[in-house]
């Protein structure tokens, strides 16, 4: 018998208000020790999913099982203490850094070696205890405050660490330290990580799997492009979306003008010239804006700006080497209209 997953979500529905935004997840397992990133547009449901997993919100329908046990209501204290979430714009207590980080241990009645533990987690987030331990909450930059908030959760050694936009308003160095710290606890303590972020590049280096959350649904594993409407009719019973500079994306007929299309990054090829033997509807000029190696999967993610929207193309390093892709280089993204799927 395999052990129960850390989380099992079953027929989950969560709604704000009576007819407001809804998140619905028919089935989802999160194994202990998983490292998952959540990306997607604002209001798509990332934060809501994290709050549900942190048991700060209760689903109207369906259930969340934690370590095989159904959690109802606000959850029992032992479950609440196994999971911790770092909310967007964290709040620090009006006290010193030390007291903030030690708070969770103090309310658990731990007295042994608190100072050492505080110093250890502060070290992990790049804030030396000697320099920062006695600073007051208002003597920290935004990035430092975020790292103190992270340290005060790391010290709890949670089974699951949930982070909502941890790098939304921090400096690059803090973003780097936060990544180092969470990757480290994931590897060392097998802490289950769930991280929502806008910064896909940062997220790709921080977690080993990415889910896209859009319109209240989990729609894929992260290498998808989302192409929102409006769409307008085009010749040959196709539809199109206008981009900057007269460029267009051609698509099969959408269910609605405002529908969003899904395009897998693996379906997007790159060409160094417009001329092609094959008949492909979409060959769109653009500029490479970024690229990096997805270390966990061994392929290359290449981002191309095609006029207001960025298209992700996923390819093997050999193909990228052959194309000599470089940031700033002009390139053509190519994908058939049939590669688009409607959400």
């Amino acid at each position, binding site marked *: 018998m395999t052990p129960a997953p850390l989380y099992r979500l079953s027929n989950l529905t969560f709604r704000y208000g009576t007819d407001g935004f809804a998140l619905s997840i028919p089935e989802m397992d999160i194994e202990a020790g998983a490292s998952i990133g959540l990306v997607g547009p604002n209001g798509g449901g990332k934060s809501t999913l994290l709050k549900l997993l942190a048991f*700060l919100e209760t689903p109207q329908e369906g259930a969340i099982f934690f370590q095989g046990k159904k959690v109802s209501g606000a959850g029992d*204290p032992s479950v609440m203490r196994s999971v911790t979430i770092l*909310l967007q*714009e964290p*709040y620090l*207590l*009006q006290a010193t850094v030390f007291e903030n980080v030690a708070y969770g241990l103090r*309310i658990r009645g731990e007295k042994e070696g608190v100072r050492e533990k505080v110093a250890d987690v502060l070290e992990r987030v790049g804030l030396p205890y000697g320099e920062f331990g006695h600073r007051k909450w208002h003597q920290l930059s935004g990035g430092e405050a975020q790292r103190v908030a992270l340290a*005060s959760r790391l010290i709890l050694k949670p089974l699951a660490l949930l982070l909502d936009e941890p790098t939304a308003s921090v400096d690059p160095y803090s973003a780097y330290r936060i990544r180092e710290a969470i990757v480290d606890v994931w590897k060392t303590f097998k802490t289950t990580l769930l991280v929502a972020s806008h910064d896909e590049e940062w997220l790709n280096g921080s977690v080993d799997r990415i889910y896209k959350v859009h319109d209240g649904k989990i729609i894929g594993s992260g290498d998808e492009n989302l192409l929102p409407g409006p769409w307008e009719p085009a010749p040959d019973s196709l539809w199109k979306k206008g981009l900057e500079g007269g460029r267009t994306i051609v698509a099969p007929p959408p269910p609605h003008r405002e529908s969003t299309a899904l395009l897998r990054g693996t379906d997007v090829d790159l060409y160094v010239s417009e001329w092609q033997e094959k008949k492909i509807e979409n060959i769109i000029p653009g500029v490479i804006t970024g690229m990096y190696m997805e270390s966990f999967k061994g392929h290359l993610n290449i981002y191309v700006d095609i006029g207001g929207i960025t298209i992700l193309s996923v390819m093997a390093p050999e193909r990228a080497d052959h194309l000599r892709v470089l940031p700033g280089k002009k390139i053509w993204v190519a994908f058939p209209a049939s590669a688009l799927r409607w959400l």
Partner: protein
Amino acid sequence: MDYLGSGFLRALVLLFSGDPETYSAIITTLEISTLSIVASLIIGIPGGFVLGYFEFPGKRQIRTISDTLLALPTVVVGLFVYAFISRRGPLGDFGLLFTVPGVALAQTLLVLPIVVSLTATAVESLDRRLRLTLITLGANARQIALQTILEARFAVLTAAVTAYGRAISEVGISMMIGGNIKWHTRTITTAVALETGKGEFAMGIALGIVLLSLALVVNAILVTLRRKR
């Protein structure tokens, strides 16, 4: 205007020679205001916390009453308490009229709304993220409540200092309940009122200086507390 200048000089003599009558009034004032402030904090901080922290039916109405009582006229409190503690009143048997505890009791009623309302406001105006943060760090209901009052500590101290300022400077209650009895219930404010009426400016000015100094100290404490934030 000579009498003011000479009154000021004699006031300094009274203060620096340790005139017993002057110091009696000062000590009585400190006694009464300390008693009343301690009592109002013991009742008012928990009361204000409950009012600001919990949701319950009638909360808005209680809050409105408390806010209205911030402007409570001292003579109304004096009248009300007098009626209760005079010999014919329901609390007449305790013999509180014209005593220090009697004045302190009335002053407690006067400043209680200040402590309650300002504490409630302090708790209400705390960052909404505080509660969520404490939950996510594993705090239980009692620990959340405790930390909430700790987070509001600067504002609560401000409430206490504001209330103290009101207690030491009021005259109506001290006059009506205390009766301005020399060596006994005569306070700084009642003494100033009496001496001025008699044309005796020296002691009035001396006590006025003390009162202003006390107000200054109280305000200095407030400023320091605010700067600590």
